[in-house]
């Protein structure tokens, strides 16, 4: 093993310590910037009495954004957030189209053509005992 001169040793030590403090500082900065000041977004939406949504109805809930469906089998909901990069898809006659990169989904939310890979998320709809609809987005 080659001998390390005093000068090289000091230089190596200095550089190691500088790099370590730099990384520590960078890590601290990263954590500092990562703090969340805002409450987590709402994941539960009260949609009011279930009787407001008659059978065979399709209701656009643009605030969530989601599409609420009422069929013979009960209530279901589709998230309208494109699974590619998060734009809100537009409901068309026979499905959904994303205005950002052109992904197309059928009426059930399955991908017809890309760039999206995954189908639109199905959201959980719950009917409370007093007949209110609750939509869960998580």
């Amino acid at each position: 093993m080659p001998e390390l001169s005093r000068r090289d040793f000091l230089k190596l030590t200095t550089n190691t310590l500088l790099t370590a403090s730099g990384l520590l500082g960078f890590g601290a900065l990263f954590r500092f910037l990562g703090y969340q000041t805002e409450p987590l977004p709402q994941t539960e939406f009260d949609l009011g009495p279930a009787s407001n949504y008659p059978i065979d109805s399709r209701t656009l809930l643009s605030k969530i954004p989601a599409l609420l469906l009422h069929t013979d089998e009960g209530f279901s909901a589709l998230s309208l957030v494109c699974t590619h990069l998060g734009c809100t898809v537009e409901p068309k006659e026979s499905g959904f189209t994303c205005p950002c990169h052109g992904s197309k989904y059928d009426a059930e939310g399955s991908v017809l053509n890309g760039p999206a890979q995954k189908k639109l998320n199905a959201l959980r709809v719950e009917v409370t005992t007093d007949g209110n609809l609750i939509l869960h987005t998580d």
Partner: protein
Amino acid sequence: MRPSFFHHLHPPTIPAAQSRWRYTLGAGGTAIFLALILTITGALEMFYYIPTPDQAAISIQTITYFVPFGALLRNLHFWAAQLFIIVSAVHLVRVVFTGAYIPPRRFNYLLGLALFVISILLNFTGYILRWDQGIQWALVVGTNLIKTIPFIGDSLYQALIGGTQPGSATLIRFYAWHIFGLMLPAAFLVGWHAFRVRREGGIALPPPTLRTDSERITRNELVRREILAMLFTGSALLVLSIFTPAPIAPPIIEMSPLSGEVRAPWFFLWVQQMLKWGDPFFWGVLIPVIILIILILIPYIFPRPAESELGRWFPKSSGLAQVTLAIIAVAIIVLTLLALIPIK
């Protein structure tokens, strides 16, 4: 007289070839002039702009429709920013097509590239500060792209966005980046970049013994040409700003429905077009980063022009570097045009 930075940049005489429009296109100097205009108009906008989600778009409407000369000021800021990107790109192309990046100017080439990246980030953050219906989907897409980066994506997203979705924390962060976090390094780099141009003997020319053209111009002539360029750029900017308003849209309201097609800001249209092809990380992050790495490597991996060939366009010995940049430039322009074709 004690020499100043002005005298550093303007020596008593310089070779005439260093200030010929047809060689330099005056692009670097024009970019510095535009940067000055951006600083002044941006500082003035700060007197009215309010960086909160409720107030941002409204305060911009106030500047645009109520404040005397506010619309002109905002249009000047907008157009100077767009011209800055174009002029910087022209400057980059000029430097590569004339082989000016070889040592000793190699490091300054890297400084210039860093400035170019920062100016794109400045333009994007400035665009987001509008916080109106025109920018909301570019914000969603741009920030979701960060999430697709393996391993660090989620924490990077949180550090930049300040939450799990864009909100008031995001706006204040973009504001801080725009006027301080990006502006400060940009100002520093502009000074360093200009300082090194002079330090390394001015605009690239063959060494004195190989020069065929011994004509020189005086400091006064150089300043005259600079003022001429500033007058020309300034008039073009004024005409654009008077007749073409900067984009503005209604404030974002949660119920705002999407209408028609959504487009990225013009300098990211080429990325938007690639994103239509599939995997967001590959097309939206990896490819742009690879292009940047190729640009960084141009002075290192390609055959260099001979020193005697400097000072003119398309030196033969560095043809490969020119072809590479030309392919990148044409690809970006074609993708940008493709992105303008409506989605069926």
